[in-house]
């Protein structure tokens, strides 16, 4: 197709591929449990991710109980504290955020938004979920084995991850953790191949890459990155598993433990860090890029205005994705690497600020003079922008070697990454759920409960994480279960920690209100209709809501325009759906 512009019209070429032959389920089990429908798989992914996320939320309460009121709770031993921190981090980053954005939103939105009937390989897609579930179960099992889960920190650095002093190090904890990660990667690969091929090869007529909603661009790029970054984690996990089970020494140097020389020798712990962060840094953007994409669509829809600089937004996503593969060692400034390495990685890290800043400016310019509706998705989108900006700015501090070295082991880092890749993407997830829940269920979420949830979460998250910057600047170390009588740390740190903890409990309970809303609105929510937000993208134009297996009725939609035709001068209404050929013929769809 020659016409790749945003404008309507042009020649819509004939279909290049015939209709996808769908698997027709014959029983209740194959319809709702072992389903090959991407939308059911999406809900399974999201449900599992949120369930395990609740575990991580409770772990964060336990962490805060200890930090806020050290010495009060006998059951939180230092070992238990490290186990809580490790499992909280790992679950939140991998099993909640990655799974929910890619497995949940990816599965639900990609086929609908590109006008496909389903993912291109529904069977592999189904397997992807069940292997993910297995990975989660293995992870949960580690709570119940002798010695408990691993307490090595979410980065699992050797050699300490495999030693006696670390919880689960010489027991089953670390083994189950590594096995669970390997399973997760295998399962994700099956789903990831689906998402990528669906976007590249499974679009409907008229849907060019440059007409795709940014949501799809974000999820697509993140999936490509995940397919290239997870191999490094896979390899690191396999090698560490061998170190632990077979007695190899890939990562284990010769060292003395409890007065005795271990059987290991000659391995390189730094090698693990390189492999881990070659995965770990792209992982940050694997979580952030879908959030970028979704928030762009939320802002454009709820400000009734086209996204500012669509092409730049797409290229920024792609460039961030590419650059994120050459910045990994900025997580290793304190590992003793060569200063010239640090210089290189600091430079690439700061360059990422350019495409990221483009995105932030474009969001703000989209809002500029827009018809802003302060709906729940919009509130969360706005909250995301400020939170991400905040976390991004502290990223500039930590990206510089000389500033990072003194800050690296303090609460400042905790504040930074919770702002930028904890709170910010979670806010987008909430906004996206409020936005697409009407399509998934046919009913609106309750507005009052939603507003309560928003304000408590947003203000609460700042109350929790903003003071942590201060804690870090005065030198409060991270990773310590309690601070004790350290001379340079003022008394006020303890008071601040107590304040943070109490806020954390309140914010945590607000999430229960959100979960209640999800269930309550299923039955009692207001009827939504097919397109409550008057949005242009294809998923809102399905003939039935919620969309059935196969998504579209007899014919797949034909796309005539980009996804952002809001408030077009002269148009009969303030949005033109992507499959509407206006002005070639008059609008026939009721508003």
């Amino acid at each position, binding site marked *: *197709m*020659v016409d*790749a512009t945003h404008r309507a019209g042009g020649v*819509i*070429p*004939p*279909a*290049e*591929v*015939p*209709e*996808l*032959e769908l*698997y027709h389920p014959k029983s209740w089990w194959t319809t709702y449990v072992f389903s090959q429908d991407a939308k059911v798989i999406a809900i399974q992914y999201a449900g599992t991710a949120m369930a395990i996320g609740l575990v991580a939320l409770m772990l964060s309460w336990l962490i805060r109980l200890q930090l806020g009121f050290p010495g009060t709770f006998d059951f939180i031993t230092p070992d238990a504290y490290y186990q809580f921190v490790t499992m909280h981090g790992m679950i939140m980053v991998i099993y909640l955020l990655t799974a929910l954005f890619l497995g949940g939103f990816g599965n639900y939105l990609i086929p609908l938004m590109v006008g496909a009937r389903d993912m*291109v*390989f*529904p*069977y592999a897609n189904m397997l992807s979920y069940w292997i993910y579930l297995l990975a989660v179960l293995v992870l949960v099992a580690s709570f119940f084995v002798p010695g408990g889960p691993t307490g090595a920190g979410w980065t699992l650095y050797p050699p300490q991850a495999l030693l006696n002093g670390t919880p689960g190090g010489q027991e089953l904890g670390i083994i189950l953790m590594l096995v669970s990660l390997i399973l997760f990667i295998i399962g994700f*690969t099956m789903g*990831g*191949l*689906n998402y*990528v*091929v669906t976007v*590249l*090869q*499974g*679009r*409907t*007529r*008229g*849907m*060019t*890459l*440059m*007409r795709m909603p940014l949501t799809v661009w974000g999820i697509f790029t993140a999936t490509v990155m995940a*397919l*290239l970054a*997870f*191999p*490094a984690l*896979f*390899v*690191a996990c*396999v*090698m560490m598993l*061998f170190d632990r089970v*077979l*007695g*190899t*020494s*890939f990562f284990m140097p010769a060292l003395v433990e409890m007065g005795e020389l271990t*059987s290991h*020798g*000659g*391995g*390189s712990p730094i*090698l693990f860090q390189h*492999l881990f962060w070659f995965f770990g840094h792209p992982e940050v953007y694997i979580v952030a890029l879908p959030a970028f994409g979704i928030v762009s669509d939320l802002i454009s829809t709820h400000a009734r205005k086209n996204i500012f600089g669509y092409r730049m937004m797409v290229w920024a996503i792609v460039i961030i994705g590419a650059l994120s593969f050459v910045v990994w060692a900025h997580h290793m400034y304190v590992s003793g690497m060569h200063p010239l390495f640090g210089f290189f990685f600091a430079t690439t890290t700061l360059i990422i600020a350019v495409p990221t800043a483009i995105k932030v400016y474009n969001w703000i310019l989209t809002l500029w003079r827009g018809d802003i509706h302060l709906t729940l998705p919009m509130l969360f989108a706005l909250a995301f922008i400020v939170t991400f900006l905040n976390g991004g700015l502290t990223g500039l501090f930590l990206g510089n070697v000389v500033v990072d070295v003194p800050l690296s082991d303090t609460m400042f880092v905790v504040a930074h990454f919770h702002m930028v890749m904890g709170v910010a993407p979670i806010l987008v997830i909430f906004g996206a759920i409020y936005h697409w829940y009407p399509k998934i269920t046919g009913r609106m979420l309750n507005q009052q409960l939603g507003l309560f949830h928003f304000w408590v979460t947003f203000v609460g998250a700042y109350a929790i994480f903003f003071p942590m910057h201060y804690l870090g600047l005065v030198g409060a170390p991270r990773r310590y279960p309690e601070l004790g009588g350290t001379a340079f740390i003022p008394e006020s740190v303890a008071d601040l920690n107590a304040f943070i903890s109490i806020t954390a409990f309140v914010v945590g309970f607000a999430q229960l209100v959100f979960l209640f809303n999800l269930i309550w609105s299923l039955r009692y929510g207001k009827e939504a209709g097919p397109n409550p937000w008057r949005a242009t993208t294809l998923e809102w134009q399905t003939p039935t809501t919620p969309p059935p297996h196969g998504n579209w009725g007899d014919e797949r939609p034909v*796309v005539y325009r980009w996804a952002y035709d809001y408030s077009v001068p002269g148009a009969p209404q303030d949005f033109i759906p992507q499959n509407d050929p206006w002005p070639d013929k008059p609008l026939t769809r009721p508003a």
Partner: protein
Amino acid sequence: MGETTLNGFGAKAARKSGLRGVVEDWSSDQRAFKSASWGKAMMWIFLLSDTFVFGCFLLAYMTARMSTTEPWPDANEVFALHIGGANIPLILIAIMTFVLISSSGTMAMAVNYAYRRNRNVTVALLLVTAALGATFVGMQAFEWTKLITEGVRPWGNPWGAAQFGSSFFMITGFHGTHVTFGVIFLLIVARKVWRGDYDRGTPGFFTSRRGDYEHVEIMGLYWHFVDLVWVFIFAFFYLW
């Protein structure tokens, strides 16, 4: 099944060649790779991901080899076979490599005959490919047995750095697993060709999706990839 193949569906528009054609394809609707079916596109992307897995394994091995303080065992001596009163270095590996590369040849011929709908020859070539693959794995098992009886273990060996055995078993084992899976899939594809599943478009047992002769080519992509990886393992592990 239409969507897995392109043969005979829809009018094919004239496409520009060179860079201009690439830009045109990527800015078009429906598909970015105009001549690739879904299955083929998926296999290519999977292989790209798998390349990163093997790349990480090999880089990790090189790092371990360079950073260890103990001497690395000499590949010429370790991998030599005692034949006819003389130690012949790398002879087994040379045969293994020859077998695996030959299997790529038979695989490519199988793809050719599959597209000609010549079922008998295709089945024969697929079975030869599988047999060569199985031979490779068998010789690898022999090599492992020999090294294990000589005292090589994942955690140590008689000649030097412990990481030698660790890397050797891990990397050749991971590659051997790939070959083994390939042999299994070759047998499955051969059975389907033999039964005429691709002529009739019989739905797959698990996926309930109809296959066609392109499956032989996709199988071939995987098989050639496994061969190509072996070349790198051969170069970095045995020749270095």
